[in-house]
Structures are given as structure tokens and as C-alpha cells.
């Protein structure tokens, strides 16, 4: 089982979510985060005082999928989240040791 963490532009949440639903991904967790890679932030001014905001709002989607679905899911995320500009985000993949369904204590890929 593989955990997929995708950090994407906030405006791309709807299209990524729809793309994932279309290919059959049933479970995901969405977080509102702030961060940056190479993308520059912006400046805000309040009563003459400047504030540099370099942590940019992003959306992080987490999901755990079976290994054979990883490539399909990754491609779907890239296709729906991409704009071609700096700030599009990143996808990280990591190995998951175990998964448990709380309702009925099923384990393994059946729990996904």
C-alpha cells in the first residue's frame, strides 16, 4: 500500500477531487496548509507597515491506495492539477505498513 501526498494549488482542489472520484479513489483527506517551494510570496501593507507573506496557502490531499493503482492515481492528479507555472505543487509517495478499518477491524488492502 502506498501513501500519496499531493500538495496542490487551492484553486485546483475541485478538479483534482473530481478526477480522483472518476478513477475510483474512494478515500482521501484534505488539509489546508501553507508553504512554499520556489514560488515567491506577496507583500501586504497595513497602515503603512509592510508584511512579507512567503508561506502561501495550498491544499494537501492525502490518500492511501493499493500499489497497482499508484501510477494511475498519480497521473490523474498531475493532469488535473497542472497549470505549467511555478507553484503547481508536488506529489510524495511513501510506503504504508498497515491499514485498519475502524468499523469492522478489517486489515490490509481490504481496509482501503
Amino acid at each position, binding site marked *: 500500500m502506498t501513501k500519496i501526498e499531493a500538495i496542490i494549488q487551492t484553486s485546483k482542489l475541485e478538479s483534482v477531487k473530481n478526477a480522483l472520484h472518476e478513477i475510483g479513489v474512494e478515500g482521501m483527506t484534505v488539509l489546508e496548509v501553507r508553504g512554499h517551494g520556489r514560488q515567491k510570496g506577496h507583500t*501586504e*501593507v*497595513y*497602515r*503603512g*507597515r509592510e*508584511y*512579507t*507573506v512567503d508561506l502561501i496557502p495550498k491544499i494537501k490531499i492525502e490518500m492511501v491506495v493499493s500499489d497497482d493503482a499508484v501510477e494511475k492515481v498519480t497521473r490523474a492528479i498531475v493532469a488535473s492539477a497542472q497549470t505549467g507555472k511555478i507553484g503547481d505543487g508536488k506529489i510524495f509517495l511513501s510506503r504504508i505498513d498497515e491499514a485498519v478499518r475502524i468499523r469492522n477491524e478489517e486489515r490490509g488492502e481490504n481496509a482501503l
Partner: protein
Amino acid sequence: MSIHGGSALRLGRFLSACTLLFLLSSNLWGFVAPELGSNAGDAQAQRIAALEQQTADAKSSADNAWMLTSSALVLMMTGPGLALFYGGLVRKKNVLSTMLQSFAMMAVISVLWALCGYSLAFGPGSSFIGGLHHLFLHGVGLQPDAAYSATIPQQTYMIYQLMFAIITPALITGAFAERMKFSAMLLFMILWSFLVYDPMAHMVWGKSGVLNAALGGHFPTLDFAGGTVVHVTSGVSALVCALYLGRRLGYPHEAMPPHSVVLSFVGACMLWVGWFGFNAGSALASGGLATSAFVATHFGAAAAVIGWAAAEWLRNRKVSALGAISGAVAGLVAITPAAGFVGPMSALLIGLIAGAFCFWMVAAVKARFGYDDSLDAFGVHGAGGTLGAILTGIFASSAINPIFKDANGNTLASGMIEGNFHQILNQLVGVAIAWGLAIVGTLVILKIVDVTVGLRVSQEHEVMGLDLSQHGEEGYYWEVSV
């Protein structure tokens, strides 16, 4: 369905005509039936007296209605107007404490005012302070006090003035936001109202006050609604507090943007509307002078928005919401001493100047000198009030308000535009006294509070936030779901 002003006037005239006709016919009856004799004459005199009483009552009724409304409007300026305005400007962890500082004034100052504050400010006394004649509001009943207003109950006057006494100390809280102990703030405000506000109010508005323009003070300062009494005293005190307490932890390097300009926006709009009670209510009557002050107030605010916004646009290439609302407040502050003395065009000019001037004070001067006047109480109220008081000496017009009269009752010139170059000097005296009283009084009080209670919260509490450390509360309990 409400009666339009014009038809009310026609109705009044019609009724007066009927009454006059009635009286005339009664008089004729006296001629036709002479044996009725002096009874008819007495009855007529009685009716005229009754009519005069009714007319006076009607005038009082209108004045009192407006004054009670104005009192409510001014209270609204503090709660929630100022509470929201200031509350939105601080960080989220301090929102409640900031709002509570204003709200506490509504409670504490009110009680003090009832016990002795009103007496010290407006009771008979010396040129500098009232006495204890009205202790526990003794003698403050429904009869007018003719020195202040012949048409409204003295209790109305008292409660109206109370709302000013409430908001003035609340303004100071902007200077030491996010770092002052609640207990210290309470003690500070109690002492401040005795040592600074009551004397200043007495000098400008109280009987035999040395700066009282309406009652023959020695240095008559034109201050219609409290430019010196409210804004200069609180603004300068704010600066002293900011310097004495020192900067917030992390200022100016750490980012401390307002946590909710939305709240500040709502508060500022309430301040604008409430200010009609503050300025137009200072006419103490519902007649033409109230209209004049109302109009001047509004145009001062409007022009100041443009003044601040224009200055901001030139400096930052953008107009901000926070800038626009701050401009409005700056204009309202500056027009406060001038409201019942200047015409609409002068009001526009005063506002325009104030908007640009206060922007400069806040955006440039504060940064250059590095003091942490957190919410710009000095930059807007202290500086704006001083500017407004001086501009009042320039733009005051006896055509709007014939406040100065010679021994024969002839109207004298008010401001510089009418040729009275002396008035500016009087304005400067008033401003100087306000500055001096504020500086000395505040320093003394800060010292007292510092050695007894301690002024600042600990570093740990400041980082934690005052809502939690001082009040055990959170303003927004959103993170944890219920």
C-alpha cells in the same frame, strides 16, 4: 406614516391661528359683554401663560428626544464601535481582551460618573475642577441646569456627558494593546478619569472653566464636541503609555497584521454613524446648530477618506480598506472640535487635510521614531485632534455659530477667516493645556500603577495572548470540533 417637516409646520401654524382666533374672540366677548369685566382678562393671561408653557415643553421635548438619541449613539461608538474597530486590529489571541478594555469603561466609568465624576467635571467649582456639589448625583434631576442647557433635564445632560467620559479612556487602550495587565488598566483608567478627564472636561465645558468659550472662560477655546477634551488628552496619553510600557515583544520585526479587518470595518462604520450623536448632539438641542454640526461631521469624514486614500495611493499604489476606514476616523476626529463652528466647505477642507496628515503620522512618523502605538491612538486621535483644534481657530465662523459677543450683545468674529487672528492663540492654549495635563497626569498615574500593580504582563503571558492569560477565554473556539 410620519408627518413630513413641512406639513408639521403648517399644522402648527394652523393650530396657532386657531388659538389666536379663539383668544381674539374671547377678547371681543369682553367688549361685547363688559359686565364680565376683569375675569376675561385674567383668563386670557392664563391661557397665554399656558400656551407659552406648552411651546416651551414642545421645544424641550424635541431637544430631549434628540439628546437621549445622541447619548445612545455615543455609547454605541464605544460598544461595539470602538471595541470592534480595535478588536479587529489586534492579533487573534488578544481580540477579547481588547474588546473588554472598551467594555470595562462602559461599566466602570459609568459608576464613577454617578458617584462623583459628573460632579467633578460639571459641578460648580474652580476654573480647573468642579466640586462635590453633585456627589451621588445630588441635585441632578429633571430640571434643566440653565448654564448648560435651558431645555433639557440635567439628567439628560449628565448621561450624555457620561458617554464622552466612557469613550475617552477607551481610546487610550489602543496604545498599549496586547501587553497591559487588565488590573493595571482598570486602576490606570480610574485614576486617569479623575486626574485628567474630569479637569479637562471642566475647563472646556464646565461652569467657570478657564477654557470655556460659551461661559466666558479666560482663554476661550472653541471645542464643540471634544477635540481637546477627548482626542488630544487620550491621544497624547496614549503616546506616553506607548513610550513608558515599551514595544510589544517582536515589534517591529515580527509580523502582527490585524486578525480581522472585517471587524474593524464594521466598527469604523458604527463610529461614523455614532459620531453624529457625538458632534451634532453637542449642540445640546435639536435645532439648526445640530443640523450644522451633523452636516460638517459627515463631510469632514467623507473628505478625510479621500485624503488618506489619496496619500496611500501615492505611497503604495493601492488604496486599502484599512486605510479608507482609518481616514474616516481621522476626519471625524479633526472635525470634532470644529463641528458646530464651521460651514460645509470648511468641513470638507478640514477633513481632506486631516486624512492626509494622519496617514503621514501613522505611516511615516511612527516608523521613523519607532514607538509602538499599537493601534495608532496618538497618530489618529492625538495628532488629528491637535490639528482639528488648530484648524477650528482658522475656520470658525460666527455665521454658523455666534459664540463670541461683545458687552452689547453684538456678534464678534470667531475664526481667522473672519479676521479674528487671536483665536488661534486661544486654541493653542487649550491644546497646550490638554497636552500638558495628559503628559503629566499620565506619567504620574503610570508610575503609581507600575509600583503597585505592575503594568505589563509577563513575557510568557504576552506570547500566550491576553485572552487566555488575563481572561481564561478564547475569542474563536473553532479548531476543536464539538
